[in-house]
């Protein structure tokens, strides 16, 4: 095999594509790597099939690899896995470009989208139907939120960083939910009456839905929003406007790291693999002025990028 093979997350795919393409153009002696889409899970599954020519070299993931997965990797002989963090993905709320400005706080989102909320000390099915019932400053739009579906890694971030954060646990306790676990569950349970709409597809689908429903609110990746800024207006969360800078500084609360995993046994064996990873990690690719950043990747801080490069060169495995 004379070609690097990559599989995994469709969130990482556009970045990997840009790098692969430039890699192919820059290093004439290597073929352009093949980057499959298909989801982090499927990617890691292929990654963990074993070592050898007909297994992939790199798995892209929009979430860290799980313990169970590492274990099955090892059971199949994939002992040494190198983890590379390429940067962050910002998760933003956006509405149609022609609408009013939005300023959200996690509590608004919780009150608008949770399955049950506490009203007058009692836990009841979410009665809110308009945004201004949640927060008087918001417009009087029917609640229609397009949120990532359960298959997306983004969903987890959405639940922990917004719903859970916006959930008034004390009120819940007061309303009679005492069990910690039960509280956790209630906090992240999303209403199922059609006001919160799961999107299992990509952000293009969410955009199309906003296009056809001008009073809808969608969850997007920062990169996607920036590419479609003429059609979308972004909402602030807790007063912070999402941007690569605010996320990199840690001011904007909702983001997640993106990774890829390299099979160390293939390094130096599959032509171009090492060069590809090295190329990926250069500032030319993932630095603040790089094409990836331009596309919407939130670059990791300088020190973190340096750390990633050093760790990879040192052959640090998980």
């Amino acid at each position, binding site marked *: *095999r*004379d070609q690097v093979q990559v599989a995994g*997350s469709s*969130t990482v795919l556009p970045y990997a594509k840009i790098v692969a393409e430039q890699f192919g153009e820059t290093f004439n002696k290597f073929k352009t790597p093949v980057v499959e889409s*298909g*989801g*982090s*899970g*499927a990617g*890691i*599954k292929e990654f963990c099939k*074993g*070592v*050898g*020519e007909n297994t992939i070299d790199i798995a892209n*993931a929009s*979430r860290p690899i*799980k*313990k*169970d*997965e590492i274990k*099955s990797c*090892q*059971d*199949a*002989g994939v*002992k*040494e896995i190198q983890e590379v963090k390429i940067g962050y993905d910002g998760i933003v709320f956006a509405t149609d470009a022609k609408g009013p400005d939005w300023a959200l706080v996690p509590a608004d989102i919780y009150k608008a989208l949770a399955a049950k909320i506490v009203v007058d000390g009692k836990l009841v099915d979410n009665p809110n139907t308009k945004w201004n019932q949640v927060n008087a400053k918001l417009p009087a739009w029917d609640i229609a939120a397009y949120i990532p*579906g*359960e*298959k*997306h*890694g983004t*969903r*987890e971030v959405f639940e*922990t960083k917004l719903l859970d954060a916006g959930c008034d646990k004390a009120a819940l306790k007061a309303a009679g939910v005492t069990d910690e*676990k039960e509280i*956790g*569950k209630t906090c*992240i349970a999303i209403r*199922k009456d*059609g006001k919160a*709409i*799961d*999107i*299992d*597809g990509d952000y293009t*689908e969410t955009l*199309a*839905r906003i*296009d*056809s*429903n001008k009073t809808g609110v969608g969850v997007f990746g920062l990169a996607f929003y920036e590419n479609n800024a003429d059609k979308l207006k972004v909402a602030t969360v807790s007063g912070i406007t999402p941007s690569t800078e605010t996320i990199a500084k840690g001011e904007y609360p909702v983001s997640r790291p993106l990774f890829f995993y390299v099979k*160390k*046994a*293939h390094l*130096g*064996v*599959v*032509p171009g693999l090492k060069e590809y990873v090295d190329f990926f990690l250069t500032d030319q690719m993932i630095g603040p002025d790089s094409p990836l950043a331009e596309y919407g990747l939130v670059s990791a801080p300088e020190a973190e990028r340096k750390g990633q490069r050093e760790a990879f060169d040192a052959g640090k495995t998980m």
Partner: protein
Amino acid sequence: MSSMLVLAIVVAIGIGAFIIARQRAAAQDDGKVKPHSRAHYHGWWAFLLATLPAALFLALWVIGSSVYLNSHLHAQMPAQTGVASEPLAVSLTKSLANGLRKLDPQQVASLPATFAELRPSLAAKGVALATDTQDYMISIAAAANKVQDTLGLVGAVATVALSLAGAAYGISQVMPRARARNNVERLMLWGLLGASTIAILTTIGIVLSMLFQTLNFFHRVPLSNFFFGTVWDPRFAAAGAVGSEGQFGLIPLLAGTLYIAFVALLVAVPIGLMSAVYMAEYASPRVRAAVKPSLELLAGIPTIVYGIFALVTLGPFLRDLSAALAGGTSFIQAQSILTAGLVMGVMLIPVVSSLSDDIITAVPRAMRDGSLGLGATRSETIKRVILPAALPGIVGAILLTASRAIGETMIVVLAAGVAANLTLNPFEAMTTITVKIVNQLTGDLEFNSPQTLVAFALGITLFALTLVMNIVALYIVRKYREQYE
């Protein structure tokens, strides 16, 4: 590779046998005894005798020797393998052995003792090996390669010998009254039978490729939760996080699948059937020749295009329409069963119309004449005689259409959404089993968590469902077919 070479030799022998046998048969035909078979059948029979048993033997030998090698390797493994498990050690040794084959002979002759030394020369040849390949494996692998070579040689010699024997026997069999044609044709028949079993093999393959994961899933999630659960909420597989254990109720998905398919049929069947009736009974041949392929084009448009159409155009249109009708609040959601059913129905029109058209045309003319001769009008004849007579076939066509509706993903995702609701309102969103199969398989979920494995359980369930549907269809068709004729 070498077995390919052996196979080539065998084929060459076969060709030789073919030529000799054919000539012999031709020479024997002196006009006194009427030969049973023509000369080239003798040739083919000799060819088959020379190649088939030998090829079969070769295949068995190759499989047998790899089984033998496997057990041989297992036997050789030390008690302490140094890696996670013995099977892993064996497979590592095997890949090592395969890697060693890429080396030059002199390199093989002087193999280094440790893996660390060996690795660079292997890597230079592009062989990827796991890092925890152990040193002791080198000698085992080298020895195994030797055993394998010997086995290969023996097998090759035996195969060629068998082939020659077959050729000789085949040639000696050439006699005027020998039934070479019958022999050749019997083998052809086996070939045809083999081809028809591929359908069964595919089915077995499908079941097997989903079975283990399905069992694994049911290991973790009780059957009753899956089959009788009314909530589909698998959650994201965040191990240890709160609320990570999801609910895997099949009922909402099943209901959605059937509901959407039902609405789609409600659109496709009347339109398709009426089109078919018109094409078969009224339209001139010219109109029919133009309309039929045009409608069939509807089935060729990629489903994603339909999906986008539903998402961007039809869904919002219906929503706004309902808003206008109800005066303000829309009672049809932009993504709804109705939208998905409508669009899918359009896609399925040609499936119904083309199949039904053929079936209606096939109703015997005598039925038509019988009714017309009594003074029935065309439409009376169609409604009261032809359609009832064609019913079994039409039912079959509808079931095929329903199967297609059940298997469709893209349209549902874009037109009806992915929310697994349980509702009777056709203006709300629902989703189907197929959608969930695709999404659970391709998400960011942990691959060996129930969240992903449930896709396999859903797959098998759906497979069983369509199987039952088809058996019912066959039964219906049989039952009614006996009635006329």
